[in-house]
């Protein structure tokens, strides 16, 4: 069976460097050898790469879109590669599959590309790894070595653990050294303590000698001061620092007392004159209470006036009030009543007035109730008795009839059913009349008893008579004398119903009677009230006026009480007026008498009394002042005498008998010096008094020089002692610090931790090294002993194509070619390119054979100019190998060399198909764009129009587009005059680019337009279309969901890259990762589809151009050309 896969049809749709599919659909492949022949650049390698990528994924698949049909003996597959996505589908079923026999990992084995084989990765590392793995029994010993932590060598000292250990060891040593250095510390301390002298004794002695020295110095000072003091006036000893100020103060005081005495004398005289001017009798001046009395009496008189006026007003008001009452209410009462009567009756009336309404309401309510109960029936009792008698008779009649029935039963008939019937009837009647049920039941029981009785008594004649009598009495209700029991029972029911009805009527009659009684009671109560109220009214002399109907509801009591009050108030007010008048007369009299004034009106009296009182007060005040000033005058005289005396005594104390103030002052000027010496001497003496006996004795026994020498020696001893103390303290501090220090133990602890870590590291290293050595041993042995099948097969191939010259081996560095002639193994890098190709060819073939050994399929193989670097001999060998291969599988061989085609044709016996790709390309192009013969037709431009813009319409000039080449614009854009443009068009220069070639002037204008175009593009993104997405530089996956979203987005109207970025950011297009967004954005910006820049206006563009082009003046033709172009672009 043919195991080969073969391509039937291939269509290269998209590939880098080819704007359109170059070959169209290629068919007619040979199942054996297919030679793809064509010049370089025609697309041979591209086509082969596409076919490879259709079989297995390859790195280049992303840039290629292709489609093919692949067939095997049993199946047909459609292979499709689109945007890097490979799909392999069974043609029959449409089922997506992975091509049976496809091996992606070693798919390189199917490709023999010259360039790849000669490159650095030509000896694909996968191959050697796979070979090694096979040599090691399927185990990658290298991987196992790495995984198990093997080490090639022990680590250097630069590892962190070593450094840390060293660092901490150093620290421990330093601390130990520091401690060891102080190990004599205790000895030093001990020695110091032993050397310590009697510091206390030294200090005492130092103090004693210092004291003695000081004592001697003070004694000398005291003597010197005494001598100086003796040279001063002795009277200075009586002075002190206050002497002068005291003297001055005494003189000032004496002068002040003199002035005060004179002033007191003057005031006494002035007061005496003022008293005389007031002219008040002495008796009034002497009376100290008269002023207050007069003022009190004046106030009393004014109060009496006010009280009298108020009493008059009150009497008038009370009289008026009484008059008003009498005027308003005199129609009610005939005359006033006594107050006790009024109180009693008013109370009675108040009580009665509160009861009236309820009594009246009761009368009315009971009357209404009675009326509602309707008329009464006084015969109801009699009727009820009559019906009861009838009932009794019927019952008796039934009983008698029953007895008679029993009698008849004795004759064979038994009335056993009668009580039962009565009970049943009673039960039926009971549903409507309960009383009847009771009666019925009673009757039934009676009948039962009667029947029983009849059994005992058989006097039926007597019963018959009684029955006839009863029938007679009930004749009105019964028909004839033969009333049957059933009729009797029905009669009994009727009578019972009647009795129940009459009972109800009797109850109603009872209510009527009760209601009538209540009406009578209410009326009687109301009458009693009317009587009581009339009695009370009469007691109050209320007028029996018909107008007073209902006056009982008027509350008289308050009004009557008010009347009495007002009468009494009038009487009281009049009495008070009399009293006030008397008081006024009395007050007026008292005031007049106290002031010794004559009769006058009250106001004049009051005024005079007040003036008199003021005069008296003034006279009394002056008199008091005079007395006080007299006292002061006496006191001033006493003080003047005393101050003179004091001054005399002061001078005498100072030793100045003549009271010479100036002499005292002159001597006092020496006093400060004298006093300073005195104070100093006293101070020295006080200090001397403080010295101890020991110091005084020592001072007395020595002189200063001796003591100074002694003191110096003591102080030297003390300084030495202090130094010892300081050192001792320092040592003790250090001892305390060192003798309980955790520093060392902590450092040692940390060092040991590092040592442990380092030791662990060492142990791991030893193990790692052990593994490495084991690995080396095993590897060396395995490479020596085992030769994998793949190498054997590759070796066979190499031997075959080198005519037995080379075989393949595997060495330390990879595959080797063993030269059987030189008996030496060569590394790949040591081989010539031809030999290298042979070696790598053989390796791939070896792998192919091994890979496909157990499979049913054989995939096509691709060769790409593998013979190009080989000499004829090697080429032929390779060609023969290809011939052998093509006998078993489809082979594609790409070459640009015709001789290679010939070589292959010479050795291959299988069918060969040669594809001339250049011809195919040409045919494809013609098929795509078939030639159409056209007749040359000359179309002259329109005649020049003076209006240049209008001329553009005549010529059919299109509007400029920002993203079209400027050189493709109509020549209209670079000319300025219609005649000028006509000349250009007549020369066939329809485009600006053509004009630029023809004339430097237009070239300059075209450059300006290009510059303007570049500036105009700033901030204006290029429209983005779906076809732009096929750019190979766009790093985006085409087989994912969001790519389709992007395509749909762009299909929906004209869009820019900025629009797309916005859609990505606001998640209109979803599922795009941030990294992909960034890559897409970068591509859009790079391609001009998106921009972050701001747009430039026409003025901006022209300004910027003017900077670089000095000739671009506003009035220049170039300026006009550029401005016109920008306007055509729609830029403002």
């Amino acid at each position, binding site marked *: 069976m043919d195991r080969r896969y073969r391509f039937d049809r291939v269509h290269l749709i998209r590939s880098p460097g080819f704007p359109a599919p170059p070959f169209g659909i290629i068919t007619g492949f040979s199942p054996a050898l297919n030679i793809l022949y064509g010049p370089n650049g025609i697309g041979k390698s591209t086509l082969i790469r596409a076919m490879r990528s259709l079989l297995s994924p390859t790195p280049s698949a992303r840039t290629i879109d292709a489609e093919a049909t692949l067939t095997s003996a049993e199946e047909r597959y459609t292979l499709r590669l689109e945007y890097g996505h490979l799909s392999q589908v069974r043609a029959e079923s449409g089922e997506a599959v992975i091509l049976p026999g496809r091996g992606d990992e070693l798919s390189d084995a199917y490709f023999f590309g010259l360039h790849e084989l000669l490159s650095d990765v030509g000896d694909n590392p996968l191959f050697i790894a796979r070979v090694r793995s096979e040599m090691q*029994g399927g185990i990658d010993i290298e991987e196992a*070595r790495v995984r198990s932590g093997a080490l090639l060598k022990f680590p250097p000292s630069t590892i962190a653990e070593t450094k840390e250990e060293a660092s901490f060891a150093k620290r421990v040593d330093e601390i130990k050294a520091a401690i*060891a250095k102080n*190990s004599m510390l205790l000895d030093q301390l001990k020695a110091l303590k032993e050397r310590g002298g009697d510091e206390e004794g030294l200090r005492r002695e130092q103090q004693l000698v210092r004291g003695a020295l000081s004592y001697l110095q003070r004694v000398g000072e005291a003597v010197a001061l005494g001598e100086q003091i003796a040279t001063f006036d002795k009277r200075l000893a009586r002075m002190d620092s206050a002497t002068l100020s005291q003297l001055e103060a005494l003189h000032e005081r004496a002068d002040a007392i003199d002035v005060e005495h004179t002033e007191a004398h003057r005031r006494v005289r002035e007061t005496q004159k003022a008293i005389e001017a007031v002219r008040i009798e002495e008796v009034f001046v002497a009376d100290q209470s008269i002023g207050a009395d007069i003022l009190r009496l004046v106030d009393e008189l004014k109060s009496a006036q006010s009280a009298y006026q108020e009493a008059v007003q009150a009497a008038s008001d009370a009289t008026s009030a009484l008059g008003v009452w009498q005027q308003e209410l005199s129609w009610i009462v005939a005359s006033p009543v006594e107050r006790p009567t009024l109180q009693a009756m008013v109370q009675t009336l108040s009580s009665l007035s509160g009861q009236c309404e309820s009594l009246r309401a009761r009368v009315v309510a009971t009357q209404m109730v009675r009326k509602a109960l309707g008329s009464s029936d006084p015969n109801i009792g009699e009727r009820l008795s009559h019906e009861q008698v009838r009932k009794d008779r019927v019952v008796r009649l039934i009983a008698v009839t029953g007895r008679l029935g029993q009698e008849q039963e004795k004759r064979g008939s038994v009335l056993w059913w009668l009580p039962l019937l009565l009970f049943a009837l009673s039960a039926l009647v009971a549903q409507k009349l309960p009383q009847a049920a009771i009666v019925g039941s009673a009757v039934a029981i009676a009948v039962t008893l009667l029947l029983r009785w009849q059994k005992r008594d058989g006097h039926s004649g007597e019963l018959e008579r009684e029955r006839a009598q009863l029938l007679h009495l009930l004749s009105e209700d019964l028909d004839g004398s033969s009333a049957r029991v059933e009729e009797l029972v029905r009669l009994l029911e009727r009578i019972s119903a009647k009795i129940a009805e009459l009972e109800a009527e009797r109850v109603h009659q009872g209510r009527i009677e009760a209601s009538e009684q209540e009406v009578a009671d209410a009326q009687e109560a109301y009458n009693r009230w009317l009587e009581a109220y009339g009695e009370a009214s009469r007691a109050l002399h209320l007028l029996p006026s018909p107008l007073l109907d209902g006056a009982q509801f008027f509350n008289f009591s308050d009004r009557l009480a008010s009347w009495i009050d007002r009468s009494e108030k009038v009487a009281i007010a009049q009495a008070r007026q009399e009293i006030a008048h008397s008081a006024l007369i009395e007050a007026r009299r008292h005031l007049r008498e106290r002031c010794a004034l004559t009769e006058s009106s009250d106001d004049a009296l009051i005024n005079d009394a007040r003036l008199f009182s003021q005069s008296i007060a003034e006279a009394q005040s002056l008199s008091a002042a005079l007395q006080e000033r007299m006292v002061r005058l006496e006191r001033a005289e006493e003080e003047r005498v005393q101050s003179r005396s004091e001054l005399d005594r002061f001078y005498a104390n100072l030793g100045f008998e003549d009271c010479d103030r100036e002499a005292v002052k002159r001597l006092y000027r020496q006093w400060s010096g004298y006093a300073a010496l005195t104070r100093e001497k006293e101070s020295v003496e006080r200090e001397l008094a403080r010295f101890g006996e020991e110091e005084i004795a020592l001072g007395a026994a020595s002189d200063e020089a001796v003591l100074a020498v002694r003191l110096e020696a003591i102080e030297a001893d003390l300084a030495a002692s202090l130094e010892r103390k300081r050192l001792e303290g320092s040592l003790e501090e250090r001892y305390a610090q060192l003798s*309980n220090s*955790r520093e060392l133990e902590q450092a040692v*602890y940390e060092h040991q931790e590092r040592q442990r870590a*380092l030791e662990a*590291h060492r142990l791991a290293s030893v193990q790692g090294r*052990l593994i490495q050595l084991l690995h080396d041993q095993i590897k060396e042995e395995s490479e020596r002993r085992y030769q994998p099948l793949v190498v054997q097969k590759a070796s066979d191939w190499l031997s075959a194509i080198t005519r037995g010259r080379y075989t393949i081996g595997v060495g330390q560095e990879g595959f080797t070619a063993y030269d059987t002639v030189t008996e030496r193994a060569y590394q790949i890098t040591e081989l010539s390119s031809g030999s290298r190709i042979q070696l790598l060819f053989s390796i791939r073939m070896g792998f192919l054979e091994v890979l496909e050994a157990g499979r049913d399929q054989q995939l096509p193989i691709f060769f790409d100019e593998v013979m190009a670097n080989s000499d004829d001999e090697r080429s032929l060998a390779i060609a023969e190998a290809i011939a052998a291969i093509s006998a078993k599988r489809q082979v594609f061989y790409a070459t640009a060399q015709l001789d290679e085609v010939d070589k292959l044709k010479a050795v291959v016996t299988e069918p060969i198909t040669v594809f001339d790709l250049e011809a195919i390309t040409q045919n494809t192009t013609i098929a795509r764009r078939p030639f159409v013969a056209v007749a040359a037709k000359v179309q002259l431009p329109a005649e020049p129009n003076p209006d240049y813009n209008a001329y553009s319409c005549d010529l059919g000039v299109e509007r400029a587009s920002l993203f079209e080449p400027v050189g493709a614009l109509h020549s209209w854009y670079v000319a300025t005059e219609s005649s000028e443009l006509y000349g250009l068009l007549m020369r066939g220069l329809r485009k600006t680019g053509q004009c630029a070639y023809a004339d430097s002037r237009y070239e300059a204008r075209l450059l300006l337009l290009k510059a303007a175009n570049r500036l105009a593009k700033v901030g204006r993104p290029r429209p983005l279309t779906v076809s732009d997405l096929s750019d190979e530089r766009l790093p985006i996956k085409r087989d994912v969901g969001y790519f389709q979203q992007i395509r749909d987005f762009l299909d929906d109207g004209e869009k820019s890259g900025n629009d797309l970025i916005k859609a990505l950011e606001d998640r209109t297009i979803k599922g795009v990762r941030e990294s992909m967004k960034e890559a897409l954005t970068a591509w859009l910006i790079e391609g001009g589809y998106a921009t972050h820049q701001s747009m430039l206006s026409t003025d901006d563009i022209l300004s910027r151009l003017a900077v670089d082009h000095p000739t671009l003046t506003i009035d220049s033709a170039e300026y006009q050309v550029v401005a016109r172009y920008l306007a055509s672009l729609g830029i403002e």
Partner: protein
Amino acid sequence: MRILAASDIHLGRRPSHGLSGQQSWDLVVDKACELGVDVLLLAGDVIEHERAWLSVYAPLIDGLKRLAEAKIRTIAVSGNHDFDVFSRLAVEGEAITILGQGGRWEHVDFQGVRFIGWSFSQSHHEQNPFDTFDRALSDGTLTLGLLHTEVGFPASRYAPSRTFDFTCSGVGLWVLGHIHRPQMVVDGQVLYCGSPLALDSSERGEHGVWLIETQSALAFEAPRFIPLSPIRYEEVAVDVTGLDEAEAVRAQIRANGRTGADGLCYGTTLYLTIRFVGTKGAALDLAQVMGQIDEAVPFPAKEGVACSILPSYIDATTPAIDLDSLAQGEGVDAQLARLIRDPVGLLELYRRLEKESFNASAYSALQERSIDEETALREATGAALRFLSAMALQREGGV
């Protein structure tokens, strides 16, 4: 008489899981005061740093003062760590009696008991102290010997001695120092005090002091061990046979930890070194298992006992690979299996690499030491098995 015996306090050496190097000394002093003993015996190595003894001198003196105040007499011999400071204390301190200064046997009689002892005069002493021992020292009285020595290692540099020396000495009881594990060397007659506090994870088991009491001045009662250490290190075996998941192994570790805590005192922290045993599957990565166990987060083993797992562990497992049958086959794994089955060759290779490692610049700071053959072979085999497991993983498609 009641005597408390301790040694190897190593004042100034911070325990691996302790707060300070003073803790051990404080515990001993506290216990002596608490028990109200008459004598505290110190059998050497009371301090850690012989040259830097000053760093712990204050707490040492403070402890001795406390003992003196409690009317406890302290009798000691110096060990290889404290010969320097003890010689000073002997001169200065009245609070301690140092026996055997200058390498001469010495005795002191106290309350009817004769204490004899010999002290280190330098950091090493390679002669047997019993070479100069005079049996007359112990004649006629109840005698207790105090010595810092290494028993049973004649080549030791730390005053080597033999069991025979003690049994023939005529001394009623020997209290020894130097070995940190408390133990009876000769039952009822010779004991190593051991360190009162477990200083690191190698010091497993209980640690504390010994209480010795006399029987009516004629003999000693059997010494009674008093645990002091609040920390205890233990090794626990965890069988990983059949355990393929790391979490299952961790659960087993915790379960074994709880079992190990049985019988421990309340207030003890138990630190466990895990020894993995049994057959280990190729996919089980013990380093990864232990990498997830956080030593800083102890779990309660039982009430009052917290259990912490130490990060270092011992891999004594055997791989789930039949080495014998594998070695019969072909391929690199078969080659490796054959190498593993050659312990002599493997050990030789490992020993060579051990030696090389100490010469490597990275490890030159480490003191060269020789591990025992069993450990060396275990380490070598472990590494080789790791390599073999990596191969096995490939065969199983693990990579």
